[in-house]
Structure formats: C-alpha cells, structure tokens
C-alpha cells in the first residue's frame, strides 16, 4: 500500500500513545494549515451552529448567497413551537453592493423581514467581505432595533477572523447582550441553565425531563429549542451546566464573572457520563438531599431498563475497534467510555477544536497504541483507520464517505443527526446504530475484507 506521509506543519498535532516514550504536549488551538483539507469550518460556521436553534428569532446572513444557502435547515435542532430558525435569510450581496456598500440593503432586508415574520429578535451574521467593504453593521442593527422595538444583534463572524472557536465566542457575545434583560422573578433557587445542548433530534427535551424529575428548574437551554425570552432570564439560574465544552465555556465564564453563576462541565453521552451529569447537579444542592435521592432514582430506573437491552449489542461488538473524529474534545471522552461499555476499543481519537487540557486528558484515557489527532484531514484519518484496522468511524457528514469508501461502519455524531444519542435512551440508539452499521453483512464485499476491487 502507498505510504501516506503527514504534512510537515501537522506533525505536532498528531500523537500516538506508546509506553516508555516521552509524552510531548500535542499542538492544538492553532489555525488550520493552508492547503491541508481541514475538516473544520470557519468563524461564521461556529456562530451559526451555536445560535441556529433559537427558534423565535430570525437569522440573517449579511453577505453573498453561499453562506446562507449552505446553512439552510441543515441541523437536526428541533423546536417545540416556532420554526423561524429553519428559514434562510440572506442579503445576497451583489457586485454593486460590494462596491457601494451593503448597509442599505441590510437595513431594508431587516425592516421587511421583521415586519413579515414578527420575530422576538434578529441575529445578523457578518460574513467575510462585510468587514472588507466597511459596512457598519452595528449601526444598522442599532437603528433597526430602535425602529422595530426588538433586539437586533450583530454577530461578528467574518469567516477569516480566526477559527470556528472564535465564531462560538462571537455567538456567545451576542447571547450575553440578551442575558440579563428579562425578569428573574419566580425562578427557583434550585435551578440551572443547560448550556451547549442544541436539541438535536429532541435531545434537550430528554435531558430536561431528567432534571425536572429531580425537582430542578431549567431556566434556559442554550440554545436547543431556544427562545429569546428564556435567554433573557438565564441570569436567574443558580448553576450553569455546560455540555459541548467547545462552544459554551466562554459564555459560562462570562456569566460567572458578571452574575456570579458558577458552572460545571458535563456530558450527556453514555451511561457513565449521563449519570454523572445528574449527580453533579444534585451535589450542587446539598441542602436538598431529596434532589440527590431523585437523581439516584432516575439513574436506577433508566439503567434498569437500558442495561439488559445493551447486552445483545455488546456481545456482537466486543473486540471491535472504533475511530472517533468529532468537533469537540469533551464529546470524545464520553464516546470512548460509551464504546467501552459496549465492548469496543478506540484506536483513533481526535477533535477539530480540543485544547491542551482536553488532549492531556485524552492521552490519559486512551489505551496504548491509540492515535490522537487535532484538526485532522481525510488523508490522515484514512491512514490511521486502515493502519489500525478500525471497524467503525464516528464523525460527521464529511467523514461519512471516508468510512464507507474504506468499507467500515459509520455513526453520525454531528449536527445533522435525526436520532437522539444523548441521555439513557440515546445510549440505546447509539449502541443500536453502531451495531447496525458495524455488523452489516454488506462489508463482506468491501476490498478490505477481501472483496473484489
């Protein structure tokens, strides 16, 4: 087989855990190398994914058509009510706008869209060229807010101004402007916000239900099934519970600094981490031992029904090997544990946006021989999948065809999924999906398994 070499500038972002070898820190948190086919997106993408699920706001992309067209209704983030987030609005800048500026077009677009759709707020995303042509979108937003009486929030998400993480921050910045503007009356002392949960396939509803069973009030979910009024009241919660560390830790820190709300990091994937995320919240309210009791009851009830149903999958999957390449590193930790609980080992673990601490922890968690990568690309992923003889790849849309071309199973763990993978019932779905893909008889025809090329 052809030797696949790693690009010179990328070597420090890859690491293989080996016994007795000095363990350097993995390089991460850098921008992608020019010319490498990064699986990452851009600043705009980061902002867009974070704010996308807010369903009673309009999301207006200020720029040429592409950025809005490619993000039209692409996430599985569902809403229990309004669905304005599933519409795509763009100022669709043309050459003349680029020359003479797009402020007027933006202004008229906003006034008309607000009139037509009656949103509770509007988010205005600036794309690459908006900064270059010098449009003052802050001024336009201010003007429209005044005239329309709703919050009109600029999101400074010019694609080239950093990485996807900077986009997360720009989105959180917009959220911070809303938080603190609503009434906190009647919010219980035993209350939380759920941060970084986007209600893909209704996952936020599952999580919310567990907390409510424990007697915890969920003030706002940021941003799954999101509503502007809930965001405005979020500063009334006692604790912030942060999942998807990549996107929302910054917001949690800001809220801590400004409103004194502490935060904890959790993950809702896999039995172990799901249970811990309930216990950790319960622990935060020691004056109410009944909350911990309720948490234990939820866990025991859920696990009792879940555990036996997983055994069929575990039996089939024991000894199979997985490769993980997802957006945030925190998700990787949970997936490793979840895979272990169904008998699988992890031979490759990586993320688009992990930081130093994440990778240090990943190193600790992984078995000998596991490859750890930051900001990887199709060539590298394929190299390691083949070398390590993985049976499964967990990733997003861009990783899916790599798995299928190479003849291995795939589990979609990205924004487009239509099946909830979070919570206890999500663990069942996850195991089922992994099982159905890894154990399919179609792989017998794959060249990797001796099929005819």
């Amino acid at each position, binding site marked *: 087989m052809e030797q696949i070499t790693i*690009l*010179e500038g990328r070597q420090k972002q890859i690491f293989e855990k080996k016994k007795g070898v000095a363990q350097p820190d993995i390089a991460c948190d850098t921008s992608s190398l*020019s010319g490498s086919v990064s699986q*990452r997106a851009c600043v705009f993408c980061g902002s867009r994914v974070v704010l996308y699920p807010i369903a009673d706001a309009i999301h207006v992309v200020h720029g040429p058509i592409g950025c809005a067209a*490619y993000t039209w209704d692409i996430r599985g983030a569902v809403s229990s009510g309004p669905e304005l987030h599933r519409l795509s609005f*763009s100022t669709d800048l043309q050459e003349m706008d680029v020359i003479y500026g797009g402020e007027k077009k933006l202004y008229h677009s906003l006034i*008309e869209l607000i009139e037509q759709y009656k949103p509770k707020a509007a988010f205005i995303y600036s794309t690459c060229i908006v900064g270059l*042509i010098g449009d003052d979108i802050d001024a336009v937003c201010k003007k429209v807010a005044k005239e329309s009486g709703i919050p009109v929030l600029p999101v400074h998400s010019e694609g080239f101004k950093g990485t996807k993480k900077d986009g997360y921050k720009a989105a959180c910045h917009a959220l911070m402007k809303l938080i603190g503007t609503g009434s906190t009356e009647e919010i219980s002392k035993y209350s939380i916000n759920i941060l970084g949960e986007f209600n893909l396939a209704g996952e936020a509803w599952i999580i919310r239900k567990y907390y409510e069973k424990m007697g915890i009030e969920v003030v706002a979910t940021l941003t799954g099934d999101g509503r502007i009024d809930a965001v405005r009241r979020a500063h009334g919660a006692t604790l912030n519970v942060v999942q998807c560390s990549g996107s929302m830790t910054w917001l949690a820190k800001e809220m801590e600094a400004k409103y004194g709300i502490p935060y904890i990091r959790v993950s809702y994937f896999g039995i172990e981490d799901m249970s811990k995320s309930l216990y950790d919240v319960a622990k935060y309210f020691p004056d109410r031992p009944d909350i911990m009791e309720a948490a234990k009851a939820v866990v025991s009830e859920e696990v009792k029904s879940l555990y036996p149903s997983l055994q069929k999958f575990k039996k089939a999957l024991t000894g199979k090997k997985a490769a993980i390449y997802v957006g945030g590193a925190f998700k990787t930790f949970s997936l490793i544990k979840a895979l272990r609980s169904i008998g699988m080992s992890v031979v490759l673990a990586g993320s688009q946006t992990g930081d130093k601490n994440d990778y240090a922890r990943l190193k600790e968690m992984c078995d000998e021989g596991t490859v750890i990568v930051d900001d990887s690309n199709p060539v590298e992923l394929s190299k390691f999948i083949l070398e390590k003889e993985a049976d499964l790849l967990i990733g997003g849309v861009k990783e*899916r065809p790599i798995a299928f*071309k190479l003849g291995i199973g795939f589990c979609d763990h990205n924004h487009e999924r239509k099946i909830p993978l979070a919570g206890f019932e999500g663990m069942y779905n996850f195991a089922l999906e992994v099982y159905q893909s890894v154990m399919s008889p179609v792989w017998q025809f794959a060249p990797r398994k001796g099929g005819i090329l």
Partner: protein
Amino acid sequence: MKHAKTATQNACKLCNPLGACLAFRGIENCVPFLHGSQGCATYIRRYLISHYKEPIDIASSNFHEESAVFGGSHNLKIGLKNVSDQYKPEVIGVATTCLSETIGDDVPGILREYKKEFKNGSPMPILIHASTPSYQGSHIDGFHAAVRATVKTLAEKGEPQELINLFPNMVSPADLRYLKEIFSDFKAPLLLLPDYSQTMDGGPWGEYHRIPPGGTPASAIVRAGSAKASIEFGSTLEAAKSAAGYLDDAFGIPRHHLSLPIGIKESDRFFSLLETLTGHARPEKYEDERRRLVDAYADGHKYVFEKRVILYGEEDLVVAMTAFLSEIGMTPVLCASGGKSGLLKRRIKELVPEMDELGIKVREGVDFVDIEDEAKVLQPDFLIGNSKGYTMSRKNDIPLLRLGFPIHDRFGGQRMHHLGYRGTQELFDRIVNTVIEQRQNASSIGYTYM
C-alpha cells in the same frame, strides 16, 4: 399579504465556487482549491457529499486576518505547496471566492510567481485559475467558468483530428456515462469535460486514494484545440463565457450549441448532429430506445396531458424540461430559477413558441419564498426540481418530483438519468408514476391497478 422583499429567503441557487469545485472534480488527478476562508471549502464539501455520497477533498488557502489585510499571496503559495506535497496532483484547480476577489488578489500573477519560486520542489502541477466571486451569478456560472478556464489553460493547436469536444453542463454522473456510451457506440472519439462520472460515483476503495480515480486527463484536454467540432449543452450559456466559445475564438473550432437534450425533439437534434459530425447513422440501440420512448408516450399520455407543474432549478435545466414537458402535453405554469442570465424567457420561447398561449410564466432570480407565493396562487398538480423544494412541497401539500442537483433527501440522485432517450424515458416514467400515485392516494376505493 404581499411583502416587500429585499432579502433572499430560502435561496434557489448556490454560490459560484461550488460549481467550479464540481467541474474541477471532473479532471483526472485534480484537486479543487478554493482561495478564501476555510468555511467555503468545508460547506461546499458537505453540500456535495450529501448529494453524491462520495468523499470530496477541496483544499483551501485558509485566509486569516493578515491575508485579508496584506493579500492572500503567501497563503495561496503555501497552500499550493502543501497540496502538491500531500496529494501529488497533476492539476490543481484554483477557484476564487468573494473574499479573495474583494481584496483584489491577482491570482494569475501569484500562480506565475509560484511556478518560479517552487520549480525545484515536487513536480509542478498544472495550475488552472477560475474567477468565481460569490457575489456574481450562481453555482452554474462557476461551473462554466472552471470548464472554460481549464480549456483555456490546456488546449493547444495541433494536427486536425476526428475528435469531438463535448461540454455537457452540470449533469449527473449517470448522464455522463450515458453520453460516453453514445459516443463509443457511434465510434466517435470524444473529449468529455468535465467527466466526474467516476470521481463522484465510484466503487469501493481497497486503500485510501488521495484523489479518486477517474476524470478527463489533462493530456486529453490539450487536444481539445485540434478537435473538429465542439458540442455544448445549455441554452442560456453564452459563447463568451463558455469553453466551446473560447475554442471557436482561439482555434476556429465550430461550436454547436444545443439545449440539454431532454425530450424526443431535443434528443433527436443531438443525435442528428452526431450523425452529421461523424458521418455514421445512429446505432440501432438508440433507434430502439427512441421507439420504446414513443411507445411509452402513447401508453402514458392520458395521465400527463394538461397537468400543471411548477418547474425550478438552473436555467438550462428549466429550459430543457419545459421543452420536454410541452411535447407530452404538460404545462409548466411557472418556470423559475435563482439564476439570472436575462435569457431564460427568450430561450424557452425559442423551443416552445406557443408558451404565452399555454400560460407558461417565466421568472428569473427568484427564491423559494417567491416560488411558494406563486404556488399558492397557481395551485399546480406538482412541483419538479431539486430537493430544496421539499419545504414548500410539504407545507402546501403539493407533491415534488426530484431531479437535478441537489437531492439531499432521497437516495441515488447521482445515478439518475436526465439526458437523451434513456434519460427522458426515466423522467417520463417517474412523472407518470407521480400522477398515478396521486390518483391512487386520492381514491376512496384503493384500486390495486391504475
């Protein structure tokens, strides 16, 4: 209530660089490269993958603030070097984006510098540059810009040959395979550009391919300059923007400009042209295909006659479909496109002169909200277009017949035929079945034969 409408809502078009990436994918051993932010490449990959179900690597120069301020030259060069080292491509197709166009990067100049500065490294790939600013036109313009740029870069004058150039427009991999089959059956040497029939719809891999096998070799494209004729599909595609137009200007190669051959009349026109150019009668196989199609028209005519549909998509596809639908007695009460060539109505009228009497309305530069507003008034029997019409189809309970690109919510869009007798047959069968299904569903009796 009618609303004033400045913003584009649910766009019925994509941006220029997407088309260029797909076209570059149809050159053998070529990596598409976007000179802009990382997001452009990633979004476009995602969008193409969801339709074609194939890996598609698109490199990016990955602009940062410094590049936006001081120019993207450095990033572009480093990017080209890295792609050359890692992919070892024979060709890199560089398409610009709104960002690099707005800051005014002189890409041809940068490519010339690159060739000088890096001549001693890895073998120098052929560098093709297409100008594809996203604030102009739509994805189809980027597609044609890339095909034209490719020919412009590679084609050379040579000894006259029997070769025929075919520039098929943005059609499906199945269509591309069918076109190759036709030429092979005519025993006519063909230069098909682009040809992503394998790169975007290929087999399994035993090992990782940096660049999937397939595509038109650069060495073959060189000969485009000595072909005896070019055929170009797409009625709104103007010579000044097209590959065949360039070859005509530069080398005097006659340009035969046809509508996409959908329907019997336009397929006949294409086959007649092939007969003229090759001097061979059409093979019996295609006579058979045509006979079966005529027979199917007879068998199915009652289902489709005077059915009213809304048709949308790229302008050339809309023109060709209008011609086909009118020959089976269906009426596209609205022919809509997000594209804006200014030619849509004129081209439809050329193929369907009675369009006004038939009540065919044409609208360019529209989005899905405009089309939906029209649908509420026009109450068509069904919609015909890509899968992005599903939202309005569901909301207004009007069935959708999917064709073209993208098809993100059904399986096998890349294997769907549209062109020639075979493609028309497939479309006709699907249209008739759409009507039958509608009738069957609406029937209180539930006939098991229809």
